[in-house]
């Protein structure tokens, strides 16, 4: 029973990680590609970690909580790196399907909520 559950978790984890990486190839522009690794992989790595935690805790060699730590660090680092990558991409004005916000100076003006669009450079 446990083996069945573990294999299910590992397969689900592998599938989600694969889909996340597949997103890098299938999605059309840089900003949409960021979504694959930040989301689909979270659940993928999450399932793998749950499986690992279950396996090592039920083998009777004491409780191992390293997985909780890995999850925590993953949840902190994945969004931070995505945020920085997209910030750099905005700075470089990379090609985007969505209309880019004009200059970031325009964004700074308080009260302005509607972003003008520019043609892709």
């Amino acid at each position, binding site marked *: 029973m446990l083996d069945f559950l573990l294999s299910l978790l590992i397969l689900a984890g592998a599938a989600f990680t694969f889909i996340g990486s597949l997103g890098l190839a299938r999605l059309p522009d840089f900003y949409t590609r960021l979504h694959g690794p930040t989301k689909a992989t979270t659940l993928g790595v999450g399932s793998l970690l749950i499986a690992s935690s279950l396996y090592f805790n039920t083998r009777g060699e004491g409780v191992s909580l390293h997985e909780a730590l890995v999850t925590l660090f993953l949840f902190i680092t994945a969004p931070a790196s995505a945020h920085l990558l997209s910030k750099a991409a*905005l700075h470089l004005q990379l090609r985007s399907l*969505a209309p880019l916000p004009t200059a970031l100076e325009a964004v700074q003006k308080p009260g302005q909520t509607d972003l003008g669009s520019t043609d892709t450079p």
Partner: protein
Amino acid sequence: MRRLLPHPLMTLTLATLWLLLVNSAAPGQIVLGLVLGWAIPLFTQRFWPETLHIHRPFALLRFIIRVLGDIVVANLTVARLILGHPQRLRPAFVLMPLALKSDLAISLLANTICLTPGTVSACLTLDRHHLLVHTLDTADREQLIAMLKSRYETPLQEIFEPC
């Protein structure tokens, strides 16, 4: 007291982190963890000018559970979008006005937005009043902003900055 123990919560967090890292709960490790948790905030105090208060711990717990659930849903959504028709996506940049003030609350909100519903936080404006969010597939921007605000920002505001 304030000078000797500037961030009691961070002390506890660091001690817990240490115990998780060494993977043991031996008394010696607990003492070492507490000493580290006391010393590290003291020596890095310049990085943490504001003290953190969690005003409603249960609301925080509820928020964490909700976010974990949303992560699963968001993963399924993004997986469906990737496997579906990437050409039909409607990506958009949305500028979200922020009601949050404190650094930690804003970064938590940005992290949550990154982990959940098909959105990545792209940029925080210099005046800290707006967060630029990139969404993967959005028809209605106003609805998205309203959803993000009610689902994530309001709980965070209740937890960290009650009026």
